[in-house]
């Protein structure tokens, strides 16, 4: 852009309106906690319980993990910056690599940067609300690791996961939230 004046294109207007609507949502979660004036860079974080009850996240089986993976302290307390991060990664506009990184974080329950069999079991149980028998869960997890594991260590590292998810045809269309 350089020295030219900033022209408000449609794109910028869309982004700005997205941003302001996000702040409106953030504010209405806890009106007494969230400030409207950010000149002094206030340090305000909303707890996990409030965010997880948003209508967009309420029905999602991974809601706790989603909020935890975007929070700095790992406990699910989001500042406004992190809130914007979360919804922009989950929006339609985010690129595939970015979504893949956060998908990996979300499914990694024990935060060891591997998707081990335990992580997969938890994911599967959250998805199906434990309606599969334990043998079936076992079999599915084994098959998943078999399909995606490249380096043969019986768990999925980030590169295994990324290699697999870039070939998943439904990933981009399912991994997004409309707000």
């Amino acid at each position: 852009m350089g020295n030219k004046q900033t022209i408000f294109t449609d794109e910028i207007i869309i982004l700005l309106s997205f941003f302001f609507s996000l702040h409106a949502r953030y504010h209405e979660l806890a009106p007494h906690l969230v400030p409207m004036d950010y000149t002094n860079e206030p340090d305000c974080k909303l707890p996990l319980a409030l965010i997880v009850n948003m209508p967009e996240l309420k029905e999602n089986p991974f809601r706790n993990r989603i909020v935890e993976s975007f929070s700095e302290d790992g406990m699910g307390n989001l500042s406004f910056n992190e809130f914007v991060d979360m919804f922009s990664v989950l929006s339609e506009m985010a690129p595939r690599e970015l979504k893949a990184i956060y998908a990996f974080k979300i499914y990694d329950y024990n935060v060891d940067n591997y998707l081990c069999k335990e992580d997969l079991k938890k994911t599967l149980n959250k998805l199906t609300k434990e309606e599969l028998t334990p043998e079936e869960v076992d079999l599915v997890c084994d098959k998943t690791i078999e399909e995606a594991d490249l380096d043969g260590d019986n768990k999925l590292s980030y590169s295994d996961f990324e290699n697999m998810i870039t070939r998943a045809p439904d990933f981009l269309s399912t991994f997004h939230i409309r707000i």
Partner: protein
Amino acid sequence: MEVDSVFFTDRSGRVTSNPLLDQLPSYQSLLYRRKSSGAGSKRRNSSRNRFGSSGSNKWAVNTVSKHEEKQKLEERPIRELPKTMAEKRQQKAQRLQDAADLSSWRQWKQGTRRYLRRLREDAHDWLSSLQLWRGDIHLIEGMFGQGILSYFSFLRFLVMLNLIIFVLMFSFVMLPIIIAPHTSGNITYNLNDGGICSVYPSSTRRGLVIYYEHIADLLSGGGFLEQTYLFYGYYRAHKIYFPKTTYNLPLAYLLATIAYLFLSLVWIVKRSATGFKRSLIQDEDRFQSFCNKIFAGWDFCITNVNASKLKRSSLLYELKTDLEEERIKQKIADRTRKEKCRIYFIRFLLNLFVMAVLAGCFYSIYKATIFSQKAQMDNIKVNFIVDLIYEYLPSIVITLANFITPLVFSIIINFEDYSPAFEIRFTLMRCVFMRLTSIGVLLFSLWSQITKCKEEPCVCGYNHLLYSCWETRVGQEMYKLTIFDFITIVSVTIFVEFPRKLIVRHCDCGLAKWWGQQEFAIPQNVLEIVYGQTICWIGTFYCPLLPAICTIKYFFMFYIKKLSLINNCRPATRPFRASSSNFFFLCVLLIGLALACMPVIASVAQINCSQACGPFVNYTTSWEVVPTAVSQLPDGVQGLLWALSSEAFAVSFFVVTCLAMFYMIALAGAHKKVIKQLREQLAMDGRDKRFLIQKLCQAQRIPEVRPSQPRQQVLSSSSSRRSPNYETSFSNNFDESLFLVHSPPDSSTHV
């Protein structure tokens, strides 16, 4: 604390560098990529200190390539970089600073590039906003998911296709005739040479016409509709003499026919190309079974409690089906020889039964067509309704057959003991075959009637007494099929689906529970519209306005189906795989197109065109118009065209195409091998790295390293989550707690 380097040993932040590992090219590129994507100055300083001694030689060599990488990175718009907001702001400030440093020429180049990219994106957005029914389809997608969405976008595609075909026929065949009087053009008509073949008794009703006879005419395409632009017989113009040019209407008619068939082929193939590639890749890896379902299966957009329950149950169903498939595969592998013989014998018997059922249906269609034709010829007028039934008899029989046979097939397949996925596909193939072949049988029976004369061989090549204008008769049959198809769809929706919904909702009896609420059965609906489209393709040659009728029919069908879906149906419990369904629809459509080409080609090239009506009166067969026109071209062009149609050219063209095909197949095979090798290499490299690190650690025995700490503790202390760095701990395998950190976003995804 800042996680800055590839190797990070302990809490106190002291970095023990390993000069050998520092020089690994992969390490260098990782570190560079992280640095160049907007790291803060603090990080830069610390890493510069580290690099002071060891890597300086390598550093100098690599600066040139790194500069180029940096340029490439700058081309991507900032919003697409996989970074957090804070880093993106830093990156933007960085870029502005860099941009100010560049020369004005480069600035202008960058600016133009940005402007063009934005223009392209805007044009793309504008074009996609012009799409028909965009809002409706979004709504359907939100409520019912991807499978049903693909059905409706397929329907939209067919509306557009039919519209384009109609525009093609209209502008090349009808428009010249219509505008000729206005532009002082002179139309010469085909002369009635007085032979017995060119007698065309008028079919318009005379005398007092009762109102319902008009309705009968409208529904059957006879009476007052026969001598209109609707049918082939009306186009009697031979040549149109405009002030500057002569317009050869018969040639235009034939070429427009070939053009619309070719255009449909090209458009369908182009549309199915993406789906085909995707299916090939998936078939290679059997990818869809588990990974895709677990990691990309849950739709994050779901906010409704009912929708989430539904999604959960459909995922459960899919997983259970896949597990079942695995079990059945195992069972098939374990089958004994005796069991195999038994299964094959049963399958043979059942296939014979299926063929008998099909033969029975085809025979009844044949008989119904002959009966209907005789009834129309003999002009027996019993009463209005019965006459209409006689006219529509072939359509009724076809519809009944297409209703019963899928039920029969789905019962039979249970005894044949295939895997579930194969069962679905096989039943579908049988239904497709049934639907499309029934049209073929109808046409065959018509053709047998047309070419059957009292004294063999026929004087005019066809039965001129009964079928003075046989093309119009065929056009009328196609017209009737289309109308009846539309009426069937509307009546089934109104008289079957609505009552079903009312019964299930308000009545609590056993019938309601057994029948259940309507589910939108995608395969059957797709077959319905492919059937309609095949009729349209065959019929356009005989009835040039048929594409317009089909466009209107599909247009109304969209709204009817949408209404039925939203009001009557519940989402399917058996999910239809969306990513492969587009390809399936287009495949079936291609089969329909192939089938439609055959009768058209046969009638153009083989059967004598009628001498009493239509544009080809002066020729023996419709195809003859082309050689006649070619013989009037200048000698050079004529010679070229004759050479192109000679056997020598055809054979050599065929050979060249075969060679190209073999080359492509070999190339694909080679690529597959390479992919397999690369995958193995990736696994090998991972193992190599671990082995090397193990050896290095054993060899070095670094004293400052603290003994192994509990993994969780160390990892949770590394606070900075601002950048998505990853710590991969190898403390499982090694005594020393040496942690390997790599930054996955840049390394694995950047150029």
